């Protein structure tokens, strides 16, 4: 077995046996079930008085509910979880690398036989597999939830084409993968978990939004030029390419500034760049703790 293959195998073992990883995945799935479907379905079914008045013109709770049914579950999953779910992928990425520094196991790993880059390659491959498992589990939970919602509402069940499901999973894998690699790289840069999670969350919640808000005050031309090169914006373009979960349920969303091909290419460049940064630091930096 090659050094990278051995590292991949044992990294998977470490991730599989680590309670914090399971907790992160399970919380994501519980949120998808409870908030993404359970709470939304309840509110749409039992809307508060006068709530209908606050809906956009032409929208209704019945139309919004269409987005919860099986035919729309891929769009629903992508639209709802591309950022929030990405945060969980970020946490898993940080856990995969940051804890090695916290426990001091970096020196233990680096004094075994595989070279540093083989260890990194095995680690990132195992992380990619874990993120794919997260995405597939998320889609499975949402598919099951949408089925139950359709049964509760007495609607006939129709599923999206398998190709659309596969594309949705691939898109989510790329978006979650970006987040996981971002977390992994931040943990490598700062050699710890806390700073990496803090900065990653700040980026998810604040930083890109603040940049676009500032650009917006300068005029839309700046936004049109710069926004298509930011990762969260491109995740949004990729999700938008799948369409809205509940068509005609409100005012149409603004057209994305770039298409899916641009979004995929940009996200891949970010992933590759972050991996390259991690590789350079891993290979060259002294291990002093």
């Amino acid at each position, binding site marked *: 077995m090659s*050094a990278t293959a*051995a*590292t991949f*195998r*044992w990294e998977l*073992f*470490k991730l599989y*046996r*680590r*309670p914090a990883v399971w907790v992160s995945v399970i919380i994501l799935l519980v949120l998808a079930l409870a908030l993404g479907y359970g709470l939304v379905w309840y509110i749409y079914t039992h809307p508060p008085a006068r709530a209908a008045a606050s809906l956009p013109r032409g929208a209704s709770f019945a139309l919004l509910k269409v987005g919860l049914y099986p035919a729309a579950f891929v769009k629903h999953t992508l639209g709802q979880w591309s950022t929030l779910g990405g945060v969980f992928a970020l946490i898993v990425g940080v856990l995969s690398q940051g804890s090695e520094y916290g*426990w*001091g*196991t970096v*020196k*233990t*790993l*680096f*004094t*075994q*036989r*595989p*070279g540093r880059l083989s*260890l990194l390659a095995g680690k990132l491959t195992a992380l990619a597999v874990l993120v794919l498992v997260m995405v597939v589990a998320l889609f499975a939970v949402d598919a099951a939830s949408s089925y139950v919602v359709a049964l509760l509402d007495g609607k006939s069940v129709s599923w999206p084409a398998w190709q659309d499901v596969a594309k949705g999973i691939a898109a989510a894998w790329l978006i979650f993968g970006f987040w996981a690699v971002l977390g992994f790289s931040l943990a490598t840069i700062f050699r710890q978990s806390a700073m990496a999670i803090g900065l990653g969350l700040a980026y998810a919640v604040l930083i890109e939004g603040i940049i676009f808000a500032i650009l917006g005050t300068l005029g839309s031309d700046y936004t049109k030029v710069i926004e298509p090169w930011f990762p969260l914006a491109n995740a949004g373009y990729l999700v938008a390419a799948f369409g809205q979960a509940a068509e005609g349920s409100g005012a149409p969303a603004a057209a994305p500034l770039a298409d899916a091909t641009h979004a995929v290419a940009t996200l891949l460049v970010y992933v590759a760049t972050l991996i390259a940064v991690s590789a350079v630091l891993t290979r*060259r930096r*002294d*291990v*002093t703790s």
Partner: protein
Amino acid sequence: MGRVTGEKLVEARGLTKHYSNGVVAVQDLDLNVMRGEVYGFLGPNGAGKTTTLRMLLGLIRPTSGSAIVVGHQPGSPAGLARVGAIVETPAFYPYLSGRDNLRILAGLSGADESRIGSCLEEVDLTPRAHHKFETYSMGMKQRLGVAAALLKEPDLLILDEPTNGLDPQGMADMRSLIVELGKGDRTVLISSHLLNEVELMCTRVGVIQQGRLVSEGTMDEIRGATQLLVRAEPADQARRVLEAAVGADHVTASDGAFRVKVALEETADLNRQLVAAGVAVSELRPSERSLEEAFMALTGEKGGL
């Protein structure tokens, strides 16, 4: 102790490490460790021992100088396959059992997984092998570290302060274990700031002070030649006789007695001269300088005691 051969398992030349904050951790250090010996790398805290060992393992890049470890560059996969190491505190995955931690390391290092049982047995950790690492005492963590280092059946064991944090019984157990490990052809390189520990375990010693190797040799070489201890009255008269016989440079007063650098065959003649001069000799015997005295003479410190 092991069978020492002329083969150098560690050869460092001019190893130097300057950190970006201006600290010079190691300066122009030469080191030779022969196959089969238990080599003690002795120095006070902060002398540069751990930095040196990290450079030998490829964890830290030297600013200048070079090293060959078991015939390979430090940190090369081929070299690491033949080296087992504990650097400072042994570090493992706290949520996994001792045995599972060893399974991971065996998988990564290419060691035979069937060796895990015998390694755990060797460090007397079998009964706790299935417990999580986070529940281990300091002594058990150190022993798991040794078991991990043994997995690869290494030619060279590098142990950095292996008794750190252990209680007296744990220290004694670890010392016995290391002496056992040093038997046969295996080579052990131990760093320590504890003089008695090095004295009990090691065949050869390198003394490091402020990043520089100030002395290297066997225990006897480090201690220096055996001296003669003379206790006699009156002291002034005794000193005059001794200085006349061997030279003033070879006589030092210590604890109400004199230490005389002289060939032991001349003991009887020296005794005759003292008695003939009317000096009453109450004690006259060979005296070895302790490693502590040698260490203090070399470093000017009373390190680790």
